[in-house]
């Protein structure tokens, strides 16, 4: 990644620039305020000294003033003065000719006539009328070199501080960028690995529970779901391959056999009949696959109507009764007709789901089981919020670890592969249950399987 396009760095730099500007402004303001306060104090002191000088002059005359001033401005004192009288030699350490300003208050630079050093000073000027009619121009001043130096120092510190902050912030930005990059980099690396086909990769987590960690968590959850779906798809493909190839092979064999010239017409027409039956069973399988797929998309919910479930269960059981009798199984239907059994449902789909459960129960219970009171028991239980349609058989049952799996599309346990059926019966029933916001529960009927179709009594539709 280019440095200029790094998000954390850009954010940090913008923040640094803003802080630097504000800091400079603040320091400039503080400097100006300090400078002004110091200047005011200097001028106030000068005013007091000037008043004192006037008083000395008024009572004792010019020479006394000069002595007074010389005393005040002796070495170590703050005050300097200059006194200029026309035609007379200037007195004091400030040469009045240096001063160009004519205002009362002034800041100026002068060269000390005694030391020859240059100073910055703030001064107060006063004109003193002499007895002989001439005017003496008196200037009292304080050197303000120190004050100036302080102001400069403040400015320097401000500048240096700003630069230091900028450098520090830049470093911090780089660090943040590296830190963030290492976190985002983990995500990038993982996604690259996934793009090359390794869906088992997961983003590394740290235990910080920060935003990125939570995002990694969510992405991992998403990946797990995708992997699960891919696996399901693979399983489905494998199962389809098996379940469709077998009848297709059979169909081809029958056709091939029928083509041989030594067979009579009757044999041929019999073979054609069998071919049609094989084709029909293939179409059935395809239709069931399509139906499961569409149910998983929520199709079928538009055709909900009031359905008397007890009636539907009885009718469906009735449809299968002769099949059970042929298999020498006793089937008991324990259903009492009741208004409570009317729910909003898709009658055809619900009928199909119930039919599949009964079909399985009959198919997997061995003939002549002779269990008391019956080999297959079909019933309805009313619970507070749900209606439970149960189908109990006396077959081999399903091992607990396999129960969740058989509800998935196209899963048939190995031992049942030889029995007729699309392998979609339970998964279709489960899909229908989900469409009705219900579920299929599989329990141990010791021995056998108890399949329960749970439906909410007030179906949200």
């Amino acid at each position: 990644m280019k440095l200029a396009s790094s998000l954390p760095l850009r954010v940090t730099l913008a923040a640094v620039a803003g802080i630097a500007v504000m800091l400079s402004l603040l320091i400039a303001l503080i400097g100006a305020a300090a400078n002004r306060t110091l200047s005011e104090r200097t001028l106030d002191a000068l005013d007091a000294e000037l008043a004192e000088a006037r008083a000395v002059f008024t009572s004792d005359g010019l020479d006394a003033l000069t002595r007074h001033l010389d005393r005040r401005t002796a070495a170590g004192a703050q005050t300097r003065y200059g006194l200029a009288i026309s035609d007379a030699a200037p007195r004091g350490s400030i040469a009045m000719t240096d001063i160009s300003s004519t205002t009362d208050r002034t800041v100026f630079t002068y060269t000390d006539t005694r030391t020859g050093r240059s100073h910055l000073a703030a001064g107060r000027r006063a004109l003193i009328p002499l007895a002989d009619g001439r005017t003496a121009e008196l200037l009292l001043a304080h050197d303000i070199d120190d004050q100036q130096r302080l102001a400069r120092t403040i400015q320097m510190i401000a500048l240096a501080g700003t630069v230091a902050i900028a450098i520090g912030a830049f470093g911090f930005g780089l660090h943040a960028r590296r830190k963030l990059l290492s976190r985002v980099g983990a995500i990038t690396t993982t996604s690259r690995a996934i793009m090359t086909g390794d869906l088992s990769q997961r983003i590394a987590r740290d235990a910080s529970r920060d935003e990125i960690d939570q995002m990694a968590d969510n992405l991992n959850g998403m990946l797990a779901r995708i992997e699960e779906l891919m696996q399901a798809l693979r399983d489905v493909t494998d199962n389809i391959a098996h379940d469709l190839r077998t009848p297709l092979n059979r169909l081809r064999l029958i056709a091939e056999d029928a083509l041989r010239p030594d067979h009579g017409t009757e044999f041929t027409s019999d073979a054609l009949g069998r071919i049609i039956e094989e084709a029909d069973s293939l179409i059935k399988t395809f239709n069931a696959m399509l139906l499961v797929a569409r149910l998983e998309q929520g199709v079928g919910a538009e055709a909900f109507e009031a359905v008397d479930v007890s009636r539907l269960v009885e009718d469906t059981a009735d449809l299968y009764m002769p099949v059970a009798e042929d298999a020498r199984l006793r089937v008991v239907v324990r259903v009492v007709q009741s208004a409570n059994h009317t729910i909003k449902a898709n009658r055809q789909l619900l009928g199909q789901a119930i039919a599949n459960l009964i079909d399985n129960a009959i198919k997997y219970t061995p003939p002549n089981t002779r269990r008391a009171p019956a080999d297959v028991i079909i019933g309805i239980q009313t619970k507070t919020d749900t209606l439970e349609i149960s189908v109990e058989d006396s077959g081999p049952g399903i091992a607990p670890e396999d129960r969740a799996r058989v509800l998935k599309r196209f899963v048939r346990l190995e031992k049942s592969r030889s029995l007729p059926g699309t392998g979609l019966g339970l998964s279709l029933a489960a899909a229908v249950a989900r469409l009705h916001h219900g579920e299929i529960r599989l329990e141990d009927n010791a021995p056998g399987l108890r399949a329960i179709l749970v439906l909410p009594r007030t179906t949200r539709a």
Partner: protein
Amino acid sequence: MRLLVIEDDADVAAFLAKSLREAGHTVDVANDGDTGFILADAGGYDVLLIDRMLPKRDGLSIVQGLRAKPDRTPVLILSALAQVDDRVKGLRAGGDDYLTKPFAYSELIARVDALARRAAPEEQTTRYVVGDLVLDRLARRVSRGANILDLQQREFRLLEFLMRHAGQVVTRTMLLEHVWDYHFDPQTNVIDVHISRLRSKIDKGFDTPLLHTVRGAGYIMRAGGA
């Protein structure tokens, strides 16, 4: 019977026309919705076979247009959409029957025959007779020759449907739809078991069987010869 097939797929249309002609019908073919509607509207057909998805005008709209006229010609809707809801939509639009592609030839012929017969004003028959088998709807009684047969309610309705369509092939799907009102596939061939029950009651012990199996198609009630 004069039939009109409205189907845009040339192969399917040709297959339909050939099959129906072989079954003794006169067949016209329209390849798009507009032409189909004009031909159908001109009238004179006993049954219309309309594909759901057509260029220019879709099948359901043709049916709705005809029903609005009103034109009560029986319509068999053909569709690749197999689900219960699609079927409900088709029948609500005014279709009389619904057949999902891919369909079996025998299923098609059986359904067209059933529709064509329905077109004739149905006299309220109270007695169906096939050979010496008599079904009395009012008395809910079935007899063969001199014997009164004891049928359960479901067996009675099954026999009634078969006898109403005597001489025609009735498919398993048609039986499921009309006798049980189920529009789904009950995995195992439950219908076969019901038929064999019924057969053991009406044919067992008699010289001539009346209820015949048509391999790969369904069943037919017929006096004399297999």
